[in-house]
């Protein structure tokens, strides 16, 4: 049954007074609504991950391996040697606190251990104790803490209250990437079998079938066929949707939620219309049928394992380059890790738009282009006919999804598209967009029902920025380019700012796109009648 939701007024009253007991005390209370279920034994067994067992974080006994402490310390040593960034981030923080009030989870919870500086200190104190001379000799005086079972539980709690969004890193004078500290924290927890269901089940599905949802090839085809039928009803045009077609020029990879959930599906319709209209020779793959990579939320090894399939399929199908959909963390993996993880992808070519001739040199290492870059280029070259009045029922703002924004610097392309397909577009306040964008509060595998309270707390700063434009401009739609956003912003906004919908950039493009030979449109992509709809600036 739908969970009892906490009262918004209660969650909005945040206490910023630190608790009496000091930060060294690691004990945490696993309170319902603020943590996630543990991963099921069968998924760990399938993936070959350590310590599969039936357990939950609320259990007193976590059934850790007898030598768990040695496993963690060996794991830390190994990572300190392998990743210079990790050692650097452990050493250089001066605890200036510039990051503290930049974290949406701290703003929403008031818990000091949700300030990025203190969240990192939870692991840094253990680093000091076992890996620095000062910490070994002077212990607590040098900021060191012993590694105990309570510390491990504290890590589990707080490293799953960080969405790896990297807003704090923007403000760090040393450029410490706190998301990478969280990643290492989760990776160490994985070594002793402490991981969450919402991450490990999608990983297992993706590894086995090719996508997080576990949709098999015949289901994939059934969904895309349905989309083609529906597009024909909407526009009178039958688009071709090739799957596993060898020799196509481009492989198109989208998040699986685009062909499963709502409102994601309307974005899928938008892509299909654009690709048809631009005349692109492309194919989907029924195996590389997932852009997302929940491996990123578990470990580097798992990230690499899942990322590899896109390139394996690109090779098998003989395409020239890869086009990627409105996916969030896929772009952090592709833009920042792929080059050395599974790349460089020398067997592919630098992406060139067949419609405009634009050569995308910035993608010369990964050979992978974001669909917003591709579409913005089409529009800039006048290749798409657009009628923005077909979006007049929408008054839109744009939520920069964390990973495409801070993970790859994609700020202007989605805005170029939106300004051309909308008559009513207003930005949220400057300090909440572009590189300073505020997280949805549910990324990095935390978008679960059981974690509802923490998600609403973490997403509140974003919701308040939406509320600002709603009041000032009458905004009724948040556009975004991430599948997690499309899944988790609707309940967040319903909770804090009722009456605001969520749409993908390509859904709005699809509404405005005038296709050659289309019959007069009577509805938008959602099937809502176009005539007589309200909207406009308030």
């Amino acid at each position: 049954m739908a969970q009892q939701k906490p009262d918004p007024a209660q969650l909005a009253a945040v206490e910023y007074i630190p608790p009496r007991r000091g930060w060294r005390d690691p004990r945490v209370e696993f309170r319902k609504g603020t943590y996630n279920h543990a991963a099921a034994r069968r998924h760990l067994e399938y993936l070959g991950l350590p310590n599969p067992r039936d357990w939950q974080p609320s259990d007193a006994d976590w059934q850790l391996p007898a030598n768990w402490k040695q496993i963690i310390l060996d794991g830390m040593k190994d990572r300190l040697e392998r990743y210079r960034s990790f050692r650097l981030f452990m050493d250089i923080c001066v605890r200036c606190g510039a990051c503290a009030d930049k974290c949406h989870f701290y703003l929403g919870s008031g818990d000091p251990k949700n300030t990025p500086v203190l969240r990192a200190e939870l692991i840094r104190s253990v680093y000091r104790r076992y890996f620095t001379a000062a910490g070994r000799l002077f212990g607590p005086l040098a900021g060191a803490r012993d590694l105990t079972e309570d510390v491990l539980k504290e890590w589990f709690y707080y490293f799953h209250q960080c969405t790896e969004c990297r807003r704090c890193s923007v403000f760090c004078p040393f450029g410490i990437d706190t998301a990478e500290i969280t990643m290492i924290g989760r990776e160490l927890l994985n070594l002793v079998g402490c991981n969450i269901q919402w991450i490990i089940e999608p990983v297992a599905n993706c590894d086995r079938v090719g996508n997080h949802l576990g949709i098999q090839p015949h289901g994939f085809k059934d969904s895309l066929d349905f989309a083609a039928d529906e597009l024909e009803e909407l526009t009178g045009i039958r688009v071709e949707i090739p799957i596993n077609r060898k020799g196509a020029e481009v492989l198109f990879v989208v998040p699986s939620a685009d062909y499963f959930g709502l409102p994601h599906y309307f974005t899928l319709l938008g892509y299909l219309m654009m690709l048809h209209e631009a005349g692109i020779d492309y194919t989907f793959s029924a195996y590389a049928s997932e852009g997302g990579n929940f491996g990123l939320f578990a470990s580097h090894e798992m990230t690499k394992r899942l990322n590899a399939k896109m390139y394996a399929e690109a090779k098998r199908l003989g395409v020239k380059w890869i086009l990627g959909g409105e996916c969030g963390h896929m772009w952090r993996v592709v833009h920042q890790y792929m080059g050395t993880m599974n790349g460089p992808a020398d067997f592919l070519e630098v992406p060139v738009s067949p419609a405009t001739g634009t050569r995308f040199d910035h993608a010369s290492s990964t050979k992978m282009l974001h669909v917003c870059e591709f579409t913005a280029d089409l529009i800039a070259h006048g290749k798409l006919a657009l009628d923005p009045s077909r979006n007049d029922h929408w008054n839109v703002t744009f939520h920069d999804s964390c990973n495409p924004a801070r993970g790859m610097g994609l700020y202007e392309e989605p805005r170029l598209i939106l300004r051309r397909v909308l008559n009513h577009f207003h930005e949220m306040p400057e300090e909440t967009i572009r590189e300073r964008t505020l997280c949805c509060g549910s990324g990095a595998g935390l978008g679960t029902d059981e974690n509802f309270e923490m998600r609403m707390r973490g997403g509140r700063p974003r919701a308040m920025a939406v509320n600002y434009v709603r009041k000032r401009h009458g905004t009724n739609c948040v556009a975004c380019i991430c599948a997690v956003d499309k899944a988790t912003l609707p309940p967040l906004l319903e909770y804090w700012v009722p009456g605001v919908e969520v749409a993908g950039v390509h859904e709005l493009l699809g509404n405005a796109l005038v296709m050659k030979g289309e019959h007069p449109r009577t509805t938008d992509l959602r099937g809502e009648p176009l005539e007589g709809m309200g909207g406009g600036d308030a």
Partner: protein
Amino acid sequence: MPTIELNGHTYAVDEDGFLEDPMLWNEQVAADLATTEGIANMTEDQWKLVNYLRHYYLEFGIAPMVRKLCKENGFKLNQVYEMFPSGPAKGACKVAGLPKPTGCV
């Protein structure tokens, strides 16, 4: 592994109350699971959705797209939410004995 007792029947379920083994499903199971969604007596429309989900699952091993579920049964999304307050994926799928959809959904 948690179990749940409903109308005198015991079921192995996951932490979210979804059936652990989707194959151990019949109409009695559906009626019992429906009570956990606040549904005392399933209506004809609710059965229509549940049976559709069940057939689709047996053919494709997954729930259908939400849009397809709505359209092929002639319901708007808000009507599905009225029938199953937790929604199509979390409410209707649970009653139909399907696993909970995961990922960016």
